[in-house]
């Protein structure tokens, strides 16, 4: 009964917002484009919010919706307000910074330097260097900012292996556009391994991973960095079908012991069909799938509690843009781990099925309604239902249409 009430309430809220946001979109998007068009700096502000509810209570939701930008409580969530600045620095570099603002479950406003980096403009031999603070080149989803996600929340396996905020850190990476007949790019990167945005590595001392308390571990040796490789290929299979296929790997120290490492590897594929005749990019069908595995050395070999934690999972999602502005989506998420994991919200057997519908009112605003059917082991009620309505605005510079 409780569940039904919640779902009804969420539906009522969604209908309310369907109306009010439509009028908001036409009244308040009064950005003077003139002033952006020729400015040497591109400035954009994107606001992403959600309203909804779940059969799980707010405490339980923090385990179910573990992503830092996921809707994570019954009621309203400010998922992500992102200020993005980018420009050409000079003849040698382009630069970009993304600052994010959000309001956490305690009601505190949080500001984060999500990314700030330089990229080179014209190195020879197909090389490009990026340096600063940035999302690690791993898979397709990790680098995407919340306002470009196809679902209201991030895949379960990414929250587990990369933490709530996605895997990002300070460092540098080299990208090489390989001299072959198709698009093939090799990324090699090194980033700092400590902090709360690299949870599988030198995460905050005192935190626990599968019962192993993390310790202070000095990351002052050159070897104590996070090393990353990614090989991405892009092919046009026909005039209407394009594909990306990538393989990624990561290795770095973790703080469950003095000499313990974590290895994560994964594969991702993205296929998109769009007929030769299409209006505003519609119709289309896009299929995106990723698999990830983690081997986490927990505790030093000399430690009696030493074990290797093995986690794996993935997601597969299909988007169907059935008419201009309208997209229907379906995602299947799964994650599992070895050992006795039934009570651990970050390692239990988990599956989630998420159908959604997104309506882009214009290129600058959208509404999205998503239902999550969640199966967990760690909650007393193994099955949970959630319904979220998401709404977004973009003002300032034109957003990029990336593949």
């Amino acid at each position, binding site marked *: 009964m409780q569940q039904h009430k919640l779902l009804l309430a969420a539906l009522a809220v969604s209908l309310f917002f369907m109306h009010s946001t439509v009028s908001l979109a036409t009244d308040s*998007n009064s950005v003077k484009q003139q002033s952006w068009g020729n400015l040497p700096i591109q400035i954009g502000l994107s606001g992403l919010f959600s309203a909804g509810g779940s059969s799980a209570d707010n405490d339980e939701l923090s385990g179910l919706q573990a992503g830092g930008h996921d809707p994570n409580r019954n009621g309203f969530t400010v998922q992500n307000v992102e200020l993005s600045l980018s420009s050409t620095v000079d003849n040698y570099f382009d630069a970009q910074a993304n600052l994010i603002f959000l309001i956490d479950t305690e009601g505190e406003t949080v500001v984060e330097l999500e990314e700030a980096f330089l990229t080179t403009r014209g190195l020879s031999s197909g090389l490009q260097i990026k340096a600063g603070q940035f999302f690690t080149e791993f898979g397709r989803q990790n680098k995407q900012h919340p306002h470009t996600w196809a679902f209201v929340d991030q895949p379960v396996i990414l929250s587990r292996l990369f933490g709530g905020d996605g895997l990002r850190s300070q460092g540098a990476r080299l990208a090489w556009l390989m001299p072959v007949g198709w698009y093939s790019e090799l990324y090699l990167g090194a980033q700092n391994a400590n902090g709360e945005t690299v949870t599988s590595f030198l995460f905050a001392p005192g935190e626990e991973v599968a019962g192993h308390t993390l310790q202070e571990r000095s990351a002052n040796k050159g070897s104590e960095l996070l090393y990353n490789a990614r090989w991405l290929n892009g092919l046009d299979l026909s005039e209407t079908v394009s594909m990306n296929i990538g393989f990624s790997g990561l290795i770095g120290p973790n703080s469950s012991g003095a000499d313990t490492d974590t290895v994560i590897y994964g594969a991702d594929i993205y296929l998109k069909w769009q007929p030769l005749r299409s209006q505003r990019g519609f119709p289309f069908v896009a299929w995106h799938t990723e698999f990830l595995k983690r081997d986490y050395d927990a505790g030093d070999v000399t430690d009696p509690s030493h074990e290797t934690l093995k986690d794996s999972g993935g997601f597969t999602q299909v988007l169907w843009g059935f008419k201009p502005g309208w997209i229907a989506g379906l995602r299947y998420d799964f994650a599992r781990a070895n050992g006795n994991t039934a009570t651990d919200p970050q390692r239990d057997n988990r599956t989630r099925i998420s159908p959604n519908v997104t309506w882009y009112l214009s290129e600058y605003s959208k509404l999205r309604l998503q239902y999550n059917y969640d199966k967990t082991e760690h909650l007393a009620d193994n099955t949970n239902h959630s319904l979220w309505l998401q709404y977004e605005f973009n003002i300032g510079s034109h957003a990029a249409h990336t593949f």
Partner: protein
Amino acid sequence: MKTFVIACLWCVTLLTVPQSQAALQIVTTTEDLAAIAKAVGGDHIKVHSLTPGSRDPHFAQAKPSMIRKVYGADLLLLIGADMEIGWLPPLLRSGRNSQVLPGNPGYLDLSTTVTLLGKPTGPVTRDMGDVHTQGNPHYWLDPKNGLLMAQAITERLVALDPDHSNAYQRNLASFQQRLTDKMKEWQATLTPLKGDKVIAYHTSLIYLATAFGFQIVDEVEPKPGIAPTAAHLNRLIKRIEDDQIKLLIMESYYEQRSAKFLQDKTGIRIGVIPQSVGAMPGIGDYIQLFDTIATTLKQAGTF
């Protein structure tokens, strides 16, 4: 195993050996630019259009295969006026080819070579829909602009590849001659349209209207890029009847339900035109584009 490795290495070598560097590599954002470049560049250039003429170039995506093309380009031709704003900047950032970045000899924005129409005069807000602040970017639909574009492309080809300067100039002269002759023919075909009030689907046909002397008085879209609403279509029905508007012109990539609805209610005739080279089978160059537009409008207007 050994033969496999050798075979692999051989494949990689084959793929990496640069294909005949003699021809200038030209990448264009649309097929119209590619067609004009081909007409003046002839065999001395290799042209590749990043988007097909059957899709709206504003809504393309920066696909990885495009990165490869931009990386290998000697010259990039673009429509400009924010037409490619969504996808060309990220593509140029990934393309790591400083030769084709803005301000360099390999970057040619053709919107700077023509006079843009429809430049908003008052303050612009996004409440007005997809308004291009620098002016309407569909300028290739006036064949007179085609002459200017061909001229500008030729000048750039000559600067980048002076060895073939004579050939480029010759091709330009012949292209301009053919186009000028054809323009007279199209003008003659479309004379009955002169002064007529016409409805378009999107604000994309003002150059075509200017070229052939008809007036676009309204659009099927209530605001540029905003899907037609029932209220707007009803208002259009009244307008079509009041002003006795006979013809609705639209590009082939738009939905045709709204236009058919207006036709059912008012009997207005619909001309579905190719807006670009490659938009329909059989349109392989810039002259064929206007041949087809003229024939289509003639049939739709039944004159």
